[in-house]
């Protein structure tokens, strides 16, 4: 009851202080151990659009074209990146230039807004049955080759951890992030009757 007699401003600052002490978040339970820096580095395979997690390495379009055959990519995706059992890797043909990047198909190395997403997926998910066996150089080379097949980069391109995040993907500005106004637990869309 004594709390209620405090001036509102005092009450607010008290709540604020409590809030800050919660935010400072000292661990409540003390369960779990601290991973080592090496463990974090080994586990952390997420590549952000900025590319900050990219490991050092380099690979060219030419090397990628060789690896595409050597690593049996062609066996599932087709020798030209299309016509195999696995998803196609080259954009749809005969699409009007005015149609925009979404018309080029659901093809990772053309629709992905960032080249880092292509690198990340090859690194974590390919080749089938042998995921995680490619070296960083090989992943840079294969990424360069697939981007070349989709006319995103020139034939002489060499990609490394510096240049990969700078590649301008055609869909870079033509996708929509989650709007800032939306938070969980509100209706899905403002003004939408349903």
């Amino acid at each position, binding site marked *: 009851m004594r709390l209620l007699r405090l001036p509102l401003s005092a009450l607010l600052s008290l709540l604020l202080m409590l809030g800050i002490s919660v935010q400072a978040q000292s661990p409540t339970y003390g369960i*779990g151990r601290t991973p080592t820096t090496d463990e*974090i580095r080994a*586990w952390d395979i*997420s590549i952000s*659009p900025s590319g900050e997690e990219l490991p050092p390495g380099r690979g060219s379009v030419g090397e990628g074209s060789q690896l595409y055959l050597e690593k049996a990519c062609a066996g599932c995706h087709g020798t030209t990146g299309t016509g195999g*059992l696995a998803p196609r890797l080259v954009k749809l043909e005969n699409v009007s230039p005015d149609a925009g990047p979404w018309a080029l198909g659901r093809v990772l190395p053309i629709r992905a807004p960032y080249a880092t997403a292509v690198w990340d997926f090859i690194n974590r998910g390919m080749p089938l049955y042998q995921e995680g066996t490619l070296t960083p150089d090989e992943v840079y080379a294969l990424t360069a080759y697939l981007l070349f097949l989709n006319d995103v980069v020139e034939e002489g391109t060499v990609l490394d951890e510096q240049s990969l995040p700078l590649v301008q993907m055609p869909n870079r500005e033509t996708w929509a992030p989650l709007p800032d106004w939306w938070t969980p637990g509100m209706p899905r*869309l403002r003004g939408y009757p349903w």
Partner: protein
Amino acid sequence: MSSKQSNRRKFLKRSAALAGGLGLGAATKSATGQLQEPEAYIQGTDELVAYGKRSRFVTSERIAHGGRASPDTFGLDFHIASPIQDSMGVITPSSLHYMGTTRGSFVPDIDPEKHRLMIHGMVDRPLIFTMAELKRLPSVTRTHFIECAGNRSNSRHTTVQETHGMTSCAEWTGVLLSTLLNEAGVQDGGNWIVAEGVEEVKGASSIPMSKAMDDIMICYGMNGEAVRPQQGFPLRLLAPGFEGILSVKWLRRIKVVDEFYMTYNDYGHLHQDADGAAMGMQIGPKSVITYPSGGQQLPGRGYYELTGLAWSGGGAVSRVEVSTDGGRNWKDAEIRGTAHRMAHTRFSFEWNWDGEPCELQSRCTDELGSVQASRAEIIEYWTQRGQPARVKGQDNSIQPWRIDRDGSVHNAIA
């Protein structure tokens, strides 16, 4: 003497006569001998004592969904739909829970003793937990549905398993992610998490921190037992009410980050416009009649308890209505049991079929006041705004079932 006592006395007299008759000749069968006998008796085995099995007469099964085989040519499981036409109550048995994977996956066979969960990134204290450590932390048990964004009905589908089978509901047990994130101490600017599994493709999704701190669970329990391998054993992230791909299975890592990371999963669910993106996380109010539903056969006119499931990513189901005349008139259905937040909710409706052709529909309203719309209403809304004539975002439109004069039930999507 009341009529009940009188009937009882008549019954006793008749029984005595039967018993007397028994003594007269061996040709007369006993009372129980005149009842239908079971087909056989199930031999008790150590295996059945240890772990029970359903009746061989119950044949409800999951099916591959969306025109791609599971397992496919490569042996990968992709999308598998639950037989919700046979569902009772709101809990999906774990072995019939729908399944979806990134790209198609092999189900990893994980030793829980060796499994670890790491939380790192923009946190004050990166942490690694064993399964035993996670189970020491305060737990919650909640009933939630999970639904795949690909759970879209179309005119080629014939049964409710095809139109709506990519949703299921279970009782989940685990630790709130907010508990773990508070242990690690989220830093300023940590606006997203990337959650990642250990399967061979290491499926990962970006999830807003607002959701992570709200109600996301890190689950080790499902329907009273450990989470099944197809559902993420030993650990699954559950994002209640959000599209299924965000409920990352075989969870081993959560990285707190500053932005949407554009993982392969994120790329696969990318939107072209802000409206689509806003509708691409939380599932709208939705319902479907499971009996009678497509492919079923009514034996004839008369009384039926019409029943179905309703759910919403926006919270609890607050109302379900049913129309038996193709959406012209609506009446309230009865909600059976408790309508939990972001959970399948069973509804029923007393119905007398007059034997005439008709069209059944159901409509869900959730606690936010959002109402399930018909396909026509949604398409009109978007075409008026110059958008393509389709249901944008996750499809929560009303499912119509047509009943023909012969009692056969059909998908009525034009």
